[in-house]
């Protein structure tokens, strides 16, 4: 019998290796796998490369992980926020490497990894400093930049509902990077507040098919983190 449900966060993250590339879902307050991030901090793996849209807020979650000094590099689109002071300090003192990627290129590079695409040409970023040194090509009169996929050893994502095969649905904008990160990692671990029997998710409504999911952990449903953002933060 296939059962991807793990009894605890600690059990689901027991084998994370030093040097791993870890994708972490979430955009703003929505879809942050807070239990799994705390679990990764407790597990203690170091020399990590983190892939996330942002670089943490306040002192919790990803910011708390950064604060441990176990993150070597972050790949993201928008590290600078009003309360990203943990990252800011690490970056300014040269203790973390930043690979800044336009958000759509970030998403597509993740998707490409999951879809087995070797590289792709994208118009985004052409002629800008973020495309410096990259291969370019004009196709049908339009200039493009060559971008490579981002593969991960581990993806940590938050979903709304799962079954023991790992089929997932999400909740509103908490979906964000979850479905594509699930595809791009060798091991995808999902936290969900709700686990249902097989067939309990309408097959027409499954967003992430279980083939992309390896481990599921049930967690308490918590109100999404609401503090820490000012309106102009992007």
């Amino acid at each position, binding site marked *: 019998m296939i059962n991807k449900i793990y009894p605890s966060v600690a059990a689901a993250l027991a084998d994370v290796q030093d040097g791993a590339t870890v994708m972490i879902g979430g955009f703003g*307050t929505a879809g942050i796998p807070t239990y799994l991030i705390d679990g990764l901090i407790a597990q203690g793996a170091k020399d990590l490369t983190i892939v996330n849209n942002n670089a943490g807020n306040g002192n919790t979650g990803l910011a708390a992980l950064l604060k441990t000094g176990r993150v070597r590099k972050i790949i993201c689109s928008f590290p600078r926020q009003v309360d990203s002071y943990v990252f800011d300090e690490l970056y300014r003192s040269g203790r973390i490497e930043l690979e800044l990627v336009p*958000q759509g290129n970030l998403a597509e590079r993740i998707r490409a990894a999951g879809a087995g695409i070797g590289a792709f040409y994208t118009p985004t970023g052409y002629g800008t400093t973020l495309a410096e040194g990259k291969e370019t090509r004009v196709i049908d009169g339009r200039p493009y930049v060559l971008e490579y996929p981002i593969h991960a050893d581990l993806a940590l994502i938050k979903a709304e509902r799962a079954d023991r095969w790992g089929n997932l649905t999400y909740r509103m904008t908490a979906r*964000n990077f979850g479905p594509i990160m699930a595809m791009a990692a060798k091991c995808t671990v999902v936290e969900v507040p709700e686990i249902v029997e097989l067939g309990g998710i309408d097959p027409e409504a499954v967003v992430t098919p279980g083939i992309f999911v390896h481990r599921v952990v049930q967690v308490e449903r918590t109100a999404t983190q*609401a503090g820490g953002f000012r309106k102009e933060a992007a």
Partner: protein
Amino acid sequence: MQKWTRDQMAARVARDIPEGAYVNLGIGLPTMVANHLPADREVILHSENGVLGMGPAPAPGQEDYDLINAGKQPVTLRPGGCFFHHADSFAMMRGGHLDVCVLGAFQVSAGGDLANWHTGAPDAIPAVGGAMDLAIGAKKTWVMMEHLTKGGESKLVERCTYPLTGIGCVSRVYTDLAVIDLTPEGARVIDLVEGLPFDELQRLTAIPLVDAR
């Protein structure tokens, strides 16, 4: 001469968004355009974090932090609206499916180059978000910005001195003084704030303008 207020600028942009359009409104000033879309015009708002059919801010106490916009503010979903993941969301931009995108800017060049993501200050932490994807993706990219910097310099320039977001992507600029189409035939002024002579607008603007009103 009275410059257009931010609300008047937003209303002026809203006037040009047609029925049925799929529209992305950038963070900041462009977000205000949503408040001026007439109720009887059906316009579908896109948010980069996976929403089509985005509605206004919820009533106080009704915020759900799983339903936010690109600026991370709580929003609502209109009936018919839907959610999707980030790669689909940016395919809507990059694939040319959005009709209009409205962005803020530090500078726009005569050729439609856009600079809006980075001041280039050496100590600034760079952050780009979806700016580069938005700039080049929509069928029409419009910019909303003050005509002049705080120091009184033209934000319409021959060549951008700030780092570029996209090349040749801006087709129209709405400022607090004028509405200007950037075309291969030049920068054509199609609207001008009341009481400002065209010659005075030209004097304030660092690129040659054509009076096309």
